[in-house]
């Protein structure tokens, strides 16, 4: 306990320096600004804004990036509530009741409770990270390559189970993602694999480029298919602070949502995505009158938003303790850290404690910042959302180009976002969900590395994955999950959760 306090106070002494507060503020602000744009989710936002952190020192850069991330998330919720366009999977749920509240003239309350719930969830999640960080780092020590590989397999199985639509398609997408990650020089022999002899492919495909293409450009192409009818709320925003009655209805969902989100966020394989869905389903089950849901129930905003934010934050845990990015956003964080010369993993905490704890403390500050800056700025976001899409998307397009060019100063990167954008668009049109592919890509390189090492240690015996107890249990969990997901009765329930 004493450790925790001294660590946190170290963190706050770093995060509360004038420069870092300023960076957190700026990050939250621009993150929200870009995240509010319809069709731009946190992944595209971070990929776009990554270059603006290049000139900073590592701690400052990570603090700003974390701010951008939270800002983008909150911006997505704002768009979901005000225009019913969820920027990403996790705010789909918020749009259900949030937008209905907005149509009833209670947009302010919906935004307010989302911000307050998120802040509470963020506070709890920060404490969870701070207290779990050290013990879990210890766990990393007993993990060898065999265990790492099995853990990542489990993560990918999670991603399959959590993906929407056909399980077969999700598996295919994961395999394609891992396959894409093997493009480039072979780690051990140095031979070129699937590079078409192109020199810029020998380092492999840049993650930011892939993510920007799939989540930025493809999204623009997809949005252009639908003639636009944007349902910007015309009613007054109304008061922002929820009243006593609202609080009374919302505080329990916030507590439950925080708990669910924080638990699921720790899981590798993008568990955080499940948080809002699980919370919404739970609230609906517990409610006295479930029919209110979908018609502007405040619980349907408070719970999922808290779960969303808690999960967004605890998903830092696998990255910071084990060095495994559990989702695409964290993979971008890995990219950002590597640019600044930090290799994410258990050693960050011991070698670079000011950075580690500074970042954790700044997460809380970022959440506070969101609460402070967003509520007064709602009017501005509403204005921005009224700009027609025909004017917005060329701007988004140019930001994407500038952002991706600035990362490596390579025109070929810019061309590749066009290619991957079209690939992503094709995948969407054929009913594939790109998110599992991205996760497969993220984990692919690490998986191959660990698989090879594990097999060298075991002299080519595949049974090593079952002989070692930790690895065996991880694989068992993965197998059970997959079987459960394939059971017809569960599948039906799963489809219901996602189609709601």
């Amino acid at each position, binding site marked *: 306990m004493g450790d925790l306090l001294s660590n946190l106070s170290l963190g706050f002494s770093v995060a509360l320096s004038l420069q870092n507060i300023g960076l957190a503020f700026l990050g939250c602000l621009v993150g929200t600004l870009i995240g509010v744009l319809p069709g731009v989710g946190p992944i595209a936002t971070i990929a776009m804004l990554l270059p603006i952190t290049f000139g900073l020192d590592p701690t400052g850069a990570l603090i700003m990036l974390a701010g951008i991330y939270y800002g983008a998330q909150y911006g997505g919720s704002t768009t979901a509530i005000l225009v019913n366009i969820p920027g990403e999977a996790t705010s789909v749920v918020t749009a259900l009741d949030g937008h209905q509240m907005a149509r009833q003239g209670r947009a*302010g309350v919906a935004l307010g409770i989302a911000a307050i719930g998120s802040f509470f969830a963020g506070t709890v999640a920060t404490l969870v990270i701070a207290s779990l960080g050290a013990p879990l780092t210890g766990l990393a020590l007993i993990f060898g390559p065999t265990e790492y590989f099995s853990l990542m397999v489990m993560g990918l199985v999670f991603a399959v189970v959590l993906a929407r639509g056909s399980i*077969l398609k999700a598996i*295919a997408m994961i395999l394609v993602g891992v396959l894409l990650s093997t493009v480039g020089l072979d780690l051990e022999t140095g031979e070129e694999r699937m590079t078409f002899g192109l020199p810029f492919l020998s380092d492999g495909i840049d993650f930011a480029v892939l993510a920007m293409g799939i989540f930025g450009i493809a999204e623009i192409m997809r949005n252009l298919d639908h003639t636009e009818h944007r349902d910007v709320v015309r009613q007054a925003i109304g008061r922002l602070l929820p009243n006593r009655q609202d609080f009374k209805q919302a505080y329990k969902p916030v507590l439950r949502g925080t708990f669910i989100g924080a638990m699921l966020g720790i899981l590798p394989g993008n568990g955080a995505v499940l948080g809002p869905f699980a919370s919404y389903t739970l609230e609906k089950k517990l409610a006295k009158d479930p029919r209110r849901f979908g018609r502007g129930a405040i619980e349907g905003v408070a719970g999922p938003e808290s779960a969303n934010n808690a999960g967004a934050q605890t998903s830092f845990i696998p990255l910071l303790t084990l060095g495994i990015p559990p989702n695409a956003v964290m993979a971008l964080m890995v990219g950002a850290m590597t640019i600044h010369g930090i290799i994410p993993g258990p050693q960050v905490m011991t070698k670079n404690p000011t950075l580690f704890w500074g970042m954790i403390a700044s997460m809380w500050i970022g959440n506070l910042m969101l609460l402070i800056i967003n509520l007064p700025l709602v009017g501005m976001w509403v*204005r921005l959302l009224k700009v027609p899409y025909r004017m917005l998307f060329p701007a988004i397009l140019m930001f994407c180009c500038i952002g991706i060019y600035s990362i490596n100063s390579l025109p070929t990167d810019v061309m590749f976002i066009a290619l991957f954008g079209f690939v992503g668009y*094709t995948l969407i049109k054929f009913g594939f969900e790109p998110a599992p592919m991205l996760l497969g890509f993220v984990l692919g390189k690490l998986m191959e590395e660990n698989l090879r090492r594990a097999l060298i240690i075991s002299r080519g*015996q595949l049974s090593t994955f079952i002989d070692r107890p930790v690895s065996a249990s991880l694989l068992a969990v993965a197998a059970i999950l997959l079987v459960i997901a394939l059971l017809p009765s569960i599948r039906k329930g799963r489809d219901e959760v996602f189609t709601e």
Partner: protein
Amino acid sequence: MSTPREGVGLSGRRGPVRAPQGIAGGILLIALAALALWLTRDLDQGTLNAMGPAMLPRWLAIGVGLSGLALIAFAFIRDGEPLERWSLRGPFFVIVAILAFAVTIRPFSFGALSLPGLGLVVAGPLAILIGGYATPEARFRELLILSLSLTPFCMVLFGDLLNLPIPVFPQELAGLFPAGWSQKAILRATAIVMAAAAIAVFFATRKARPTTIDVADHSGRI
């Protein structure tokens, strides 16, 4: 919500193919797998003890191909979704806009074709003007004003304030300015000229209709 479930209106379709989307997706996966297998054909697979570079890609490609086959098989057994409507206008203009940005941002040569580096001052407006036509609702005036105002903003933000190594203007432009001017000064001057042009276009082409100013405060009470 009372939206009808997907697939409700599909029962009337005839023919052995019950999920056209599955067929298309399956073919795509198989093609991808074939490409990967072909690309790794010369690489050594190695043994489990000492894996070669081709081991993982090859097995993954086989996995992808099998998923594709399974998708096609299921398309004959189970009902699925029809193919969605494709429009090529959007992707076409978006891709061309991105390519235009990529080839003009800095000196580019591809075979016999070579372009001088024109910098953000040209690449930015090009991307916006071409990309803007991805929607049938495009209006030239709007796009022109947008490109003339956003580009200087980005020039100042990325080139001046953030010091990112992004080429901002062609070197030839520097010759037009007095010799003593620094790169930053030229950047700012160009940005000001563009912003002024944006304002000029805005006022020059404004339609002489009674302007209905949106007085109603949409932003609400805060």
